[in-house]
Structure formats: C-alpha cells, structure tokens
C-alpha cells in the first residue's frame, strides 16, 4: 500500500510540472547573432514573470522558411506563432483556416499599440484579426559616400532617372561598380521593378492591375517600367557575376565598399555589416540614402514608399499563452530595445522614439509621411504571381527579356490566379 502511494506520488510529481507549463513555439527568421540574443533575453524575462509558460524560439533561414512553412503549418510540428510578411500568403493561410482569430483575446492595449494600419494589415478578408504587426520596413537606395566622391558624382544629380543613369555611367567610366544586386535570389532584383512601377503606375495603377482590370500588368505603364529597368540593365551597372550572387553576397559586396549603391530594405544597415568581410561594413559617416529617382510623367506620388509591414501570425493551435507572449514581446519596452540597436523599425507606439540611428529615423519618417506604403510586391501578390514578378525582374536585370514579354508573363500569372 505504501509502495502504491509512493508510486502514485512520484507519478503525480512527474506529471504535475508538465501539466502546468504551456509551451509556446515562436518560429522566427532572425539570423544576426546579437539580435537572436536579444530575442532570447526577452523570452527569458517573460518566462521569469510567467513560470507556467515556456517560450521556444525555433529558427529557419529566410528561403528555407518560405519553402517549408506551408507543410509545417499543416503538420503536428506547426509553430504557435510565426514570422509573416503579410499580404497574399497571409491571406491564403487565413482563408484556409490555418490561423487563429485573436481579436477577442488580444488586449486593447496591444491593439492600440500597433495602430489602425497594423490592425488593417493583419485583418483578413473575413474580418478577423490573425496577427500582430511588429515592424515597418522600407526599401531604399543605400549609397557609399566615399565612392561617390571618388568618382565625382553629386548625389543630388541623381534625383531624376536621366540624372541617375548619367551618374551610373560616370561610375562605369571611373571603373567602380555602380550597383550591387543579389539576382540569384531574384527578390532583390524585384525591388528595382517595384520601385519603377511605384513611380510610373502609382497606387491606383498597381491595385487595378493586381485585380486584373484592363490590360493589367501588360498595360502601358508596366511595360514602360520594364523599359526603364532595361535601360539601366543595358549599361551593365551590376557587379560581376550578379546572376550567381544571392542577397548575402550582394550585401557583403556593398558592405565591403566595392559597389556604390544597393537598393535594399532598411534591414541591410545591420546585414551589410554582418555580411562584410571585416564585420564592420561601411561606417555611418560614409553611408547615405538616396531618394529613388523620379520619372518624368510618372503617376506615383513622390512620397510613395515600398517596403514591409511585418508581423507575427497565430497558427490555429496557438494557445492564449501564445497571445500573452506576443503581447509581451511586442510591447513598447521590448520593442524599444530593437529600435535602440537599429535592427528594425518597430510599429509599437512610442518604441521607435528611442531610435538614434539617423537612417532608421529618416526611414521611419518616410513611411510616416508616405501617401502610399506599398507592400513588397512578391508578398502582396502571393507566391505564384510574386514568383513570376521575381523571375521577370531577374531576367530584366540580366537584360535577357523584352519589357513587353515580361509584362505579359506577369499578367498571365495574375489571370491564372484570379
């Protein structure tokens, strides 16, 4: 009898902690070691305050993440919460019922913190809220001041497309690689096409084309955007071997001071350092941001920005504890830590106020003042159309397709998915 009681007690003792602790698995794509460290420390703080919750932070590399997520969400290994760029893929996940609506669980405080733009971005077509906005990002034209000086190019002369092309030519003549690009990964090339489309077609034009109205992406403005891209590509402005270079290679190439410009998201500020040979990249006083050149007769608003509104989505098995964790992670105090170290620009109200990094401050202002903050096209248009946009952009960068054909193939993909 005694033995049985003892066994029962031992059994209970073994089960008790398991029952009490809820595990929250947060799948992220952060690869910068110091940033991962920060995430771990926030999780440790949370677990200290909530002994009944265990936060796990599994990691997948960017490309692997995109490839694996579909299967992962439908498996027993599905994470509770995961990184998302919003847009087409997110809507598909919501539509298929793989996400948990959280509008009734999420605190009002957390809702207010992300603002109306944050709420709108993660509200699916069915009106439910499935995610929490975390950060805003903008694709900007980074430039290396030392190389501009060396070639004798005035940054101010590059504000128009003609001026920009003339500047590129000056770099070519000076034997300096004008632009770094990671065309193997394709999405870095699609930033060029996207920025030109934002300038040429503007918000109304893009949104109508995405809905398949009229000539869609085969319309005049999109062909023209492709022609501008080809005009640039024909000058061979990219580093040697750009078709074999991934994003990391191009980012390192720019960080090593070997190319004058790099059209990339604001995250490249940190990534460029991390990818450079000496891990220091371009010093702050030699780094600058150029406004993307304007196009004569373009329909876009000069304040339009292109970028992201990244967030954290809740999979359908997410527990209430998962919501508590994301609220904690995304609160002003914790997000201010990300802002302080300039990893990204947090959306959480007030968190970005502590930003001292001049580039991030400028980018935050750009987005705040934007008439239209266009979501990354390859995310906004969903995986299939987005994939074709990326393909065509890489082809255009390599000057191996006509603008007309590229435009028609994108339109075809849109028609296919409607």
């Amino acid at each position, binding site marked *: 009898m005694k033995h049985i009681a003892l066994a029962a007690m031992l059994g209970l003792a073994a089960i008790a902690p398991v029952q009490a602790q809820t595990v929250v698995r947060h799948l992220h794509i952060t690869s910068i070691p110091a940033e991962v460290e920060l995430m771990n420390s926030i999780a440790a703080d949370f677990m200290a305050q909530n002994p009944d919750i265990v936060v796990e932070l599994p990691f997948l590399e960017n490309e692997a993440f*995109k*490839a694996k997520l*579909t*299967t992962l969400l*439908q498996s027993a290994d599905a994470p509770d919460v995961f990184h998302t760029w919003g847009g087409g893929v997110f809507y*598909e*996940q919501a*539509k*298929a*019922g*793989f996400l948990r609506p959280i509008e009734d669980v999420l605190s009002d405080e957390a809702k207010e913190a992300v603002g109306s733009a944050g709420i709108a971005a993660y509200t699916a077509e069915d009106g439910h809220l499935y995610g929490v906005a975390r950060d805003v990002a903008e694709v900007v034209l980074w430039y290396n001041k030392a190389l501009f000086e060396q070639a004798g190019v005035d940054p101010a002369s590059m504000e128009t497309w003609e001026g920009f092309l003339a500047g590129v030519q000056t770099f070519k003549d000076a034997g300096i690689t004008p632009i770094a690009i990671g*065309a*193997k990964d394709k999405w870095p090339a699609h930033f060029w096409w996207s920025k030109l489309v934002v300038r040429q077609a503007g918000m109304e034009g893009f949104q109508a084309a995405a809905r398949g109205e009229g000539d869609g992406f085969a319309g005049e403005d999109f062909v023209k955007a492709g022609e501008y891209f080809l005009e640039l590509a024909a000058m061979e402005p990219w580093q*040697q*071997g*750009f*078709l*074999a*270079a991934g994003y990391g*290679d191009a980012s390192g*190439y720019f960080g090593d001071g070997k190319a004058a410009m790099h059209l990339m998201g604001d995250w490249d500020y940190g990534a460029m350092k991390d990818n450079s040979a000496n891990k220091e990249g371009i010093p702050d006083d030699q780094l600058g941001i150029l406004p993307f050149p304007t196009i004569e007769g373009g329909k876009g608003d000069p304040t339009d920005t292109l970028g992201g509104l990244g967030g954290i989505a809740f999979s359908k098995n997410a527990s209430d504890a998962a919501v508590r964790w994301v609220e904690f992670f995304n609160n002003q105090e914790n997000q201010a830590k990300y802002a302080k170290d300039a990893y990204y620009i947090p959306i959480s109200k007030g968190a970005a106020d502590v930003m001292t990094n001049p580039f991030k401050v400028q980018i935050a202002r750009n987005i705040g003042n934007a008439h239209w903050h266009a979501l990354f096209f390859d995310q906004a248009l*969903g*995986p*299939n159309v987005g*994939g074709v946009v990326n*393909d065509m952009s*890489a*082809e255009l960068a*390599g000057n*191996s397709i006509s603008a007309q054909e590229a435009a028609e*193939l994108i339109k075809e993909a849109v028609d296919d998915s409607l």
Partner: protein
Amino acid sequence: MSTVAAGATAGITTTARRRRYMDRKSLLPLLLFLPPSLILFTVFVVLPMVDAATFSFFDWNGYGPITDFVGFENYADVITHRNFGTAVRNSLIVVAVSLLVQLPLAMWCAIALAERSVNINILRTLFFLPFMLAEVAAGLIWKFVYDGNYGLLPAIGGAIGVEMPFVLGDKLWVIPAIMLVITWKYFGFHMMIFIAGLQSISSEVIEAARLDGVSKWQIVRHIKIPMIRSAIVISVFFAITGALQLFDLIIPLSNGGPSHSSHTIVTFLYQFGILRMKLGFGGAVSVLLFIACVIVALAYRRILFKVEQN
C-alpha cells in the same frame, strides 16, 4: 512423344509438390517479414504517388480542401511552360553525361584499381570519398570552388593569367560546371560496383589468356567487360534513374539559375510546383516524370532481354 509427355507430367507434379512444400515453409517468414516493408513502401511511396496523381487534376495551393477540379489543364500548363523544355533537355544531358563520360571513366579507374594493394586501396578510397559526402555538402563545396570573387577556380585562373567567368551565373557555363560536379560525385560509386565485379573474375581465366599471348586491351575487351556484364547492367540502370531524379546537388549549386537555365525535371517541379504553391502543377510534373521512369525501366528490361537472347 509419350516419354516427353510423361516427363512433362512428372515435371509438373514435382513443381506442384515443391510449391506446396514451399508454401507451408515460406508462409511464416512471409507473414513476419513482408508486412513491415510492404507497409513502409505503401505509406511512403505508393500513397504519396496516388496523392500526387490526384493533385495533378486539381488547382490547389496547398492550403485547405482540394475542390477545384481542372482536368488535364495542369498537364497542358506543364508542357507549354517556358522553362519545362530546358528542364527536360538538362535532365537528358545528365543522362548522356552519366552514360558516356561517367561510366567509361569509372570503368577505366576500376580496371586500373582492381588489384589489391595498400596504395591502390588509398586511391580507391579517395575516388569513393565524394560519393560518401552528402549531396548538399558537395554542392556547397563546389559553389565555393566556382565562386567568381573568392573561389578556387578564379584563383587558379588568376595564377595562369586567364580571367575565369562566374560559371554559376553564366548560362553557357553553368551546365558544364554542374556536369563536372556530377561526374566527380558519382563515378566512384560506379567504380566500386565495377571493382566488385572485376574481383569476382577468377584469376585463372586471365592467367590462361595471358599464357595464350592475349594483349591487355583484348583481355579487357573480351574477358573482363563481358564477365562483369551484370555489374554494368546495374550501373547503367542506377545512372539513368539517378540522373532523372537529380535534385539536391543543383539546389545549393545554382538553384536552377541563372534565368532557370539549369533546372532538372525535379528542381523544376520544386521551384514551380512547391515554392510557387501550385501543387496541382507539381503533381502533373511528378506524374510525367514517373511515366518517363517507368518507360525507361521497361524499355531497359526489354532491350536487355533481347541482347540476352542474341
């Protein structure tokens, strides 16, 4: 006549008796050993194949229920896809290089290295080493070798004063570059199969031929190669099916690029079916590939059968 008939009847009865005997004796091991492999094969091979074939008739993005039946539209999309022809062509090039370069090279090495000695063992291990490397690791190693900025190849080129292209970013060079890696990676495997075959040839046969004054080449041509015929048959079969399924070397090397010029059928399937979330399209590619493999397997058996009869 009657003796023949009697013989035949006797034959039937003995086989029948043997079969009955076999039945009783083999039933237990059959029941014990067949189910595990049968279940594994069914769950991991047959069912996914049936699934993929089903998907191929639907428009499905991988999320939610499969409802949108489209008939043969996916198949039409695959065949008219602007990159499908390139993928098929590349897969055929891999088959050709495997058969015409890799296997002869493996045979040559095998004949040179079939003897047993310490030095030869070291060489053999060296040649076999690439095969033991994981495909992805091998792909990454060669990606570094080929890297135009920091790689070994441009360093060698620089040393002899030749400017090397960025081979993996060049539509012209990417296929030869990949073929070199494939040959390097797999010839050791075929070499080992051939060596095993060569070592089973009785040394007396070779000795007798030598005494008759037969030249080395003639020994290879008329004794060694014919006597390891079955090893060659296996090797050719592995080479063809392996080439048709090539995937994990390509992904780290070129990821099918530049401009989708280095896709094989399977990386094409992965890129446009899985990553683009068009699983019906991917299913259609996989069914076409499966049919191609079955045709190859059947044709191969038939050809071998004919050769054997002759």
